[in-house]
């Protein structure tokens, strides 16, 4: 019989090798799937996982795109990681992301065509404010009335999606879009446009912000009192209260932090890659970020890697569609399997398998 025995300390070695094992198992599962789909497994694996990084014609484009795709997800996941450690479940980051984008865009539109100097900065602040404000609703309802933040934040995602639809078909609709529901494009208004920093890479300020935030989050979680407090609150709520950690304050802080970073991500996305808002702006980053946060074991550096791995499967998946006509659905299945294996392999970090001869253990 095989049983799990808890390690006294998480194993560093297993921490490194678990993802590698998971990837290998994923490759095998993918190969089987491709064989079923009647595709050459080797070729499919190469297109999915190798080409986006190393293919001669593709990689120079797709490598920076990995960062561009991962940036908003990483940014949101970093914010969520604080609350998740404290047992505060904001699963409505998608809504905060949308509201941040709406707030930032409205500032940009108000200033549209003017030569006001700090437009971009103001938009960024508005983005953060929009995300924080939206996150404050579940925070205050929980603190004031004890309403569960999982439900409220989730419901507010759908409200935000509808609010966005109302905005782009109504007050924020561009006068030059021939009646289509979308805002003006910031591409036509450089002071508000979050353009490429290095030409032809697509890299924008959001990527820089995501990496800087990861470093800051790492510092806070490792060295700052706040990082310690959230861990205590998450592991032992009663002990936390006794040691003077105010749960109410932590709820508000954690939701503000995750909401603010989600709003910031919304701002970077709406001012750069999409450059405008449409009804299709919501792209599920807020939900993807939850997975990324856990894949990264709620650790900022881990989150950066997890975000990049997920971006790799997305971009590799697109290539697999183009090159081999693999259906989009198969790519989702592969992502799901990769996540299963990564999560399952993590058991090795905290536990070890022990084999007991039958009848003895």
């Amino acid at each position, binding site marked *: 019989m095989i049983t799990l025995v808890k390690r006294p300390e998480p194993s560093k070695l297993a921490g490194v090798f678990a993802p590698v094992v998971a990837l290998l198992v994923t490759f095998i599962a993918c190969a089987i799937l491709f064989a079923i789909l009647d595709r050459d497994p080797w070729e499919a694996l190469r297109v999915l996982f190798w080409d986006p990084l190393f293919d001669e014609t593709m990689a120079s484009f*797709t490598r920076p795109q990995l960062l561009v795709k991962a940036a908003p997800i990483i940014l949101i996941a970093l914010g969520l990681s604080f609350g998740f450690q404290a047992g505060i479940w904001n699963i409505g980051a998608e809504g905060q992301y949308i509201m941040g984008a709406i707030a930032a865009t409205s500032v940009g539109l108000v200033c549209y065509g003017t030569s006001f100097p700090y437009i971009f900065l103001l938009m960024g602040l508005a983005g953060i404010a929009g995300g924080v404000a939206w996150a404050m609703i579940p925070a205050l309802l929980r603190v004031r009335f004890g309403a569960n933040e999982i439900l409220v934040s989730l419901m507010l995602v759908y409200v935000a999606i509808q609010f966005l639809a109302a905005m782009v078909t109504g007050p924020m609709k561009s006068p030059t879009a021939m009646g289509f529901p979308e805002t003006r494009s910031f591409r036509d208004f450089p002071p508000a446009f979050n353009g490429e920093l290095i030409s032809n890479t697509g890299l924008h300020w959001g990527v820089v912000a995501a990496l800087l935030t990861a470093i800051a989050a790492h510092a806070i979680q490792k060295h700052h009192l706040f990082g310690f407090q959230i861990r205590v609150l998450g592991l032992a709520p009663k002990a936390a209260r006794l040691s003077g950690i105010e749960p109410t304050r932590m709820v508000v802080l954690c939701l503000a932090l995750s909401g603010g970073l989600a709003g910031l991500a919304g701002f970077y996305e709406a001012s750069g890659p999409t450059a405008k808002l449409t009804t299709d702006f919501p792209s599920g980053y807020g939900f993807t970020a939850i997975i990324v946060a856990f894949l990264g074991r709620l650790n900022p550096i881990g989150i950066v890697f997890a975000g990049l791995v997920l971006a790799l499967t997305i971009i590799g998946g697109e290539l697999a569609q183009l090159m081999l006509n693999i259906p989009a659905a198969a790519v989702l299945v592969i992502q799901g399997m990769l996540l299963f294996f990564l999560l399952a392999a993590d058991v090795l970090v905290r536990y070890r398998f022990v084999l007991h001869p039958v009848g003895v253990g």
Partner: protein
Amino acid sequence: MKLLKNISAVALAFGLATSAFAEDPTKVGFVYVGPIGDFGWSYEHDQGRLAIEEAFGDKVETTFAESVPEGADAERVITQMALSGHDLIFTTSFGYMDPTVNVAEKFPDVKFEHATGFKRADNVSTYSGRFYEGRSVIGHIAGHMTKSNVIGYIASYPIPEVIRGINSAYLAAKAVNPDVELKIVWVFTWFDPAKEADAAKALIEQGADILMQHTDSPAAMTIAEEEGIFAFGQASDMKQFGPKARLSSIIDDWAPYYIARTQAVMDGTWESMDTWDGIAPGMVVIGDYSDDVPEDVQASANAIKEGIAAGTLHSFTGPINKQDGTPWLAAGETPDDGVLATMDFYVEGIEGEIPQ
């Protein structure tokens, strides 16, 4: 800078390759907004892709990416298509407009075709169907066939395309049935079968005995079949979803256009242009009438279809007032394409407001 060189070198190489080696297949790519199994919009575009393969055999290679979100993701997918040596790329949703134009700028030797948009460039064409012409035909049938004088309309988003269809259908129905009333539900989605089904039920509850839709799933058709009322297929024929309910359908037939444009790329005669085709060239097809449509209605519907095809009849022929009573078209007047393309008002007689 190195990347730019790479990209142009690749683009150049492929540009040369296609002209130098005639036996090299022409590579045609498609970007779809929905799954090819939506049985509506994306499904019909994919039928067009298959028609290209059928027509050219070994001389073409087609690829597609489905369920591609509009915006930044689309731009990346289109770039990957251009990088992987496609000669012609069809981007089949309005939201791909800016991404298509942006990518086209970087790949001057690749040809792009964007559906339903209005931004063009030397290597970007636009194309769309005059679906409102089809609405005239089904509106006519609905006006004749409704007994409750209430027609239900499931609308997606308040864009000119959808508003044009509502107006066209209403005018045609009103012309044969002055008492007809149009009830409209905006669902704010292109594809959500459950919501479309609920909207259909709400309209039936409100007395509608014929349904029209401008959304992508066949959900409303199945509800009409269940409830024993009539409906029209949208984008694809949808007959299998409502054998009794379906009176006719408006089918988007992209195949002739896609084949012609692929041929143009092969011949080196491709040029940027704006195509807005209707019933006449066969981009908008009216599906077979069901046996429930009486002979005389079939005949008059055919007369409208042929009139539109021949150019003797226009879906919007004055006198037509706007909803608030202000005159829009004088007697005998027809609007130009610019006015049609930006239509943002209901015509007189339609109740309710366009959401804004």
